[in-house]
């Protein structure tokens, strides 16, 4: 029985590796399409981490929304954009700037990491509810109903706005 825990731990390490491999690909890719594939890989890894955090529902949502929708939108944006050879690092950062930015990011990560390690996290004394989808749905419909409706209105506004913005760009100058 104890083997299951080792397997779960191995999967956790694999998902973490997936996240950082995807991140590395997305950051160092020469072409944007490769960067999107790296992003999809990293988000798949994050979905696995959600699974380890006890929420298979969110893992599925992550795959559906992020990997399925957001990455496809970005891929479309790349496909109608400039040609790949127009994008290839024509003004890449110099080594000095790369070192400086890596140093700044590492310093910020180190500061936050030291905070995380030093803080004593206190779990809540009592738990109400559970991680089930039924409980999430009830909370969405009763407790967080207003936020839920606002998010749906925001999505609608974003879609309409996106269509309008892209539509304006398509018009011939001087026609309207």
């Amino acid at each position, binding site marked *: 029985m104890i083997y299951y825990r080792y397997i779960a731990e191995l999967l956790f390490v694999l998902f973490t590796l997936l996240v950082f491999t995807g*991140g590395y690909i997305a950051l160092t890719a020469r072409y944007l399409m490769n960067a999107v594939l790296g992003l999809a890989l990293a988000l798949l890894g994050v979905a696995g981490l959600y699974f380890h*955090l006890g929420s298979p529902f969110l893992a599925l949502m992550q795959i559906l929304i992020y990997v399925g929708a957001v990455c496809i939108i970005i891929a479309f944006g790349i496909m109608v954009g400039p040609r790949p050879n127009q994008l290839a690092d024509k003004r890449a950062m110099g080594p000095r700037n790369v070192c400086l930015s890596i140093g700044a990011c590492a310093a910020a990560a180190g500061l936050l990491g030291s905070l995380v390690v030093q803080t004593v996290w206190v779990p809540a004394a009592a738990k109400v509810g559970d991680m089930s989808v039924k409980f999430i749905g009830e909370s969405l419909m009763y407790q967080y109903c207003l936020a839920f409706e606002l998010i749906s209105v925001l999505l609608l506004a974003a879609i309409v706005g996106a269509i309008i913005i892209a539509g304006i760009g398509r018009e011939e100058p001087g026609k309207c």
Partner: protein
Amino acid sequence: MLMLSDNLNTYLIIAILLLALGVFGMVRHKTFIGMLISAEFILAGASLNFMAFNRFLAPNPAVGQIFTLFIMGLAAAEAAVVVSLVLMVYHQYRSIDPAEVHDLQH
């Protein structure tokens, strides 16, 4: 044995590294879409933080999941708007390089 997957600090440190990756990508990428991809990394780190706190500390385990769902919706809306903006910028300037979009400077 040390269970990495059952420890809050592991998830928080992964989220910090995702944030650092995203910030570095924002600086490194020379296109709007590259910067959008880096912003998705930062959002993924934030969601992971919420889920980790939800799993280990929060009294109500539905709150973090609902928040993460909201972040996913916001990220989808943001991606749609940014991609349409990028399309318009490319149509006007024939480039998606932020350095070449500088009409407001003059």
